[in-house]
């Protein structure tokens, strides 16, 4: 059965027609073409589909799209407009090789954003707790933690003056 819902996606009000069985990540990827959010397991285990719902990270494979009517969704696409305009978290991941295959990365970055909004100066242990819901099958966790630590530094310190 088709249904129509109104949501705010990355700051824009959208009315979306979709199959009411669709999960949130299916709506984002297949109806809205926002393919930055990935689907790994579809069972809430891997975190590749992590997005923010009303400002709180959720696993979008385990939320029905029809159930978020009226709510606000923020995806990885909201973080930067182009490769030359990366968010500090993304710059830190690039600089520290915080990804190998990159499949889990959009979810890890969203979890990092959630952490750094709440805790500007996390310890490595706090970083590990914060990304516990994001699996990296390349097992690149050391470099991911290093990237998050640098992202925290970048976001704490004012950008250096440019000449």
């Amino acid at each position, binding site marked *: *059965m088709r*249904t129509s819902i109104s949501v705010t996606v990355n700051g824009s009000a959208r009315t979306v027609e979709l*199959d*009411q*069985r*669709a*999960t949130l990540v*299916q709506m984002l990827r297949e109806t809205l073409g926002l393919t930055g959010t990935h689907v790994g397991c*579809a*069972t*809430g285990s891997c*975190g590749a589909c*992590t997005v923010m*719902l009303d400002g*709180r*990270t*959720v*696993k979008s*494979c*385990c*939320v*029905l799209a*029809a*159930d978020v*009517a009226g709510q606000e969704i923020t995806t990885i696409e909201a973080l930067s407009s182009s490769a030359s305009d990366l968010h500090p978290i993304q710059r830190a991941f690039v600089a520290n090789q915080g990804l190998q295959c990159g499949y889990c990365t959009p979810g890890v970055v969203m*979890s990092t954003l*959630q*952490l750094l909004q709440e805790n500007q100066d996390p310890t490595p242990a706090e970083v590990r*707790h*914060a990304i*516990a*819901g*994001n699996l990296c099958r390349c097992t690149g966790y050391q470099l991911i933690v290093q990237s998050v630590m640098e992202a925290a530094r970048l976001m704490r310190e004012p950008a250096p003056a440019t000449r």
Partner: protein
Amino acid sequence: MLAKEFEFHAPEELDAALGVLGNGGGIVKVLAGGMSLVPAMNLGLVRPDTVLSLNHVRGLDQVEDRGDSIAIGAMVRHDRIAADPEIGSAFPLLATAARAIGDVQIRHRGTFGGSLAHADPAADYLPVMTVLGATLRLRSSDGERIVPAREFFVDIMLTDLGRDELLVEVEVPKQPDSARSAYVRLARVEGSFAIVNAAAVVDEGKAAIAIGGATGAPVLIEPDVDLSGGLSEEALEEIGDSAYEATDEAFGDLNSSAEYRRELARVFARRAVQTALGQRDGGPE
């Protein structure tokens, strides 16, 4: 992949939700946080005819201090249970249990009532509600029932909840100031379901311990020990033995055999009491 066709309802009023539940044809599944239901639907393990979401029903997400008790709405999410100052002060073991659930994203979406109604035998809240003597408020179009947690959980994912009933609220009695409590669990990896967990309340020399994960429903033990003079090795032995004896209907699965679960029940009943009395760090095992 899409699930089988289903009717979807997301009412804003409780009466409307109860109406759907009373009149829905076929298999009606109640959707709270969806952290267990939606994966099961994605895998085709659950194929409901009707999905009734409670996410927009008003009034189910309150935490209310009622003097001698705190009432917690069914749709209060885990991250709030973990952080709510009233809950943390009255029931620190409940906050500990909430912090152990899943991961950040799951705690943002999953709900207190959803976990209780789903009744996974290793769910973190089950022994906590059992040992604290909580009561569950079940509503239907016909009225309401108040059921003690100690009677609500029947077996693996089986509760006393009727087909036309919704769990709307849990009332948890405050403990005396002199009471000490703890929640402990064994899981292989952070975020995993526990294999065995235990919640203890110690007061006036007596200990009550609820053990989850070993049997289909939590078991409550009140060992014949006197802890008023401290926790002796003999008392600890007795607590462990009581836990072992009470879990004679333990189940086995891929994680561990029934006999291993009974031995864990012994160990974690002891640890729960030791942690409650400050003789052991209750951190992740």
